[in-house]
């Protein structure tokens, strides 16, 4: 595996431009969780011209619905959920300054366009490595819509959160590159 690249949030365009598909990164700083229901609410607010409950400028959105925290732990297991369900929402959040997403699985062409247009990066964490990922999460504060339970928006403080760049701001797509490299006719 290539050397790990350490990045800190909030991200700048300059940092995002240094990231390429296949890069292994360790993320430190704040990341915001959101998945299906929270995204619907965020986009509904944007449609209505209302302010969002969180400032996403420069920030990463992590597609996760963690398991409950045991007493004394900030969070339970916290691996990524399937990102393609957020395909329709992701370009909207990139357009207002979010610098990218963390999830699992390929995102569609509209998202790829938005990553290029707004200088964003899509990274993946290993789906199902949820216990391991949880160890990098040091604090967890629900900041919007607690009634959504596991789907509420949380502000996570992470140290060396492991991820891999899957789709970058240069049009790179590791899924297509991987199949081209390892597929056997």
């Amino acid at each position: 595996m290539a050397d790990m690249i350490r990045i800190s949030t909030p991200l700048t365009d300059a940092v995002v431009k240094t990231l390429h598909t296949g890069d292994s990164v360790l993320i430190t700083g704040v990341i915001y969780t959101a998945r299906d229901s929270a995204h619907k609410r965020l986009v509904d607010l944007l449609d209505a011209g209302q302010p969002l409950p969180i400032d996403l400028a420069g920030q990463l959105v992590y597609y996760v619905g963690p398991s409950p925290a045991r007493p004394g732990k900030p969070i339970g297991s916290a691996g990524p959920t399937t990102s393609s369900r957020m395909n329709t929402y992701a370009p909207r959040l990139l357009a207002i300054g979010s610098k990218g997403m963390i999830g699992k699985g390929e995102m569609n062409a509209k998202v790829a366009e938005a990553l290029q247009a707004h200088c964003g990066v899509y990274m993946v964490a290993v789906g199902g490595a949820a216990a391991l990922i949880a160890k990098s999460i040091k604090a967890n504060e629900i900041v919007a819509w607690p009634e959504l339970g596991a789907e509420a928006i949380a502000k996570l403080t992470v140290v060396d959160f492991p991820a891999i760049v899957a789709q970058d701001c240069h049009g790179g797509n590791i899924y297509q590159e991987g199949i081209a490299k390892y597929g056997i006719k």
Partner: protein
Amino acid sequence: MDLYLSEQNHGAAHSRLNGPIPREQVMREIAAPIISEAVAQLCIDANYHLGEDVLTALKEGLAKEESPTGRAILEQIIENAGIARQGEFPMCQDTGFAIFFVELGQEVIITGKTLEEAITEGVRKGYGEGFLRKSIVSDPLQRVNTKDNTPPVIWIETKPGKDLKITVAPKGGGSENMSEVAMLTPSDGAEGVKNFVVDKVRRAGSNPCPPIVVGVGIGGTFEKVAWLAKKSLLRPVGDRHPDPFYAAMELELLDRINKLGIGPQGLGGRVTALDVHVEVFPCHIASLPASVNIQCHAARHKSIVI
């Protein structure tokens, strides 16, 4: 609780000659709370302890994988299973829809509650006490979380005897979403079924958290074939179908799937599937139903015989 019939009381002839045998001597009673307690523990065990069969297959995959990224991912998954085993963090945050396959001995009577109620109570208890995620909404469109991961999905088969075997298979949403039923026609034949399976895995790509286990159902009816694919996932990874024809099909499918290049997490590589399991059932002269139920690498299932 365990009232087994004694030898000398066995048989209908005795019953006719000497009057009815008391029910508790013919039937074995199991009190509902015993079932609930066992189910609660099963739900927890399944989510914290990945089976040795899966771990072995992951380690074999690590040896085979050519992609450095793929190997790093497999290493993370193996390390993750070790962390989960310590009992603080379930192996995946998606602790699943609790699916049960029950083999109910015909000489068993459940007392206090119905079997379904007893299992449901066990799910409530296990998902609460085990700090497992509550992932079920009460209505598919109005989507309000039931907050205790109930109801479970329960399949019951009857068997001879006095045992009650309960298997739980917590199923994550990501891989379940990548499943499909196809009503093929008899002329499509084995080749048609194989092409359908491989194409489904190709289209699922990175989404179901590869490396995956692929459950395949062939035959039966529209609903039966989906059940077959699900049931096949209970077989240990590495287990082959007893019929050599289907055992060969499983291996051929595994080979074709692993040539797709999807690899661990879909980032490219050799290890896309850990195994393929095929289950079959007789079908109508006009039909060839086929199904694919994809299981992520957190291939969780635990059984108990009460």
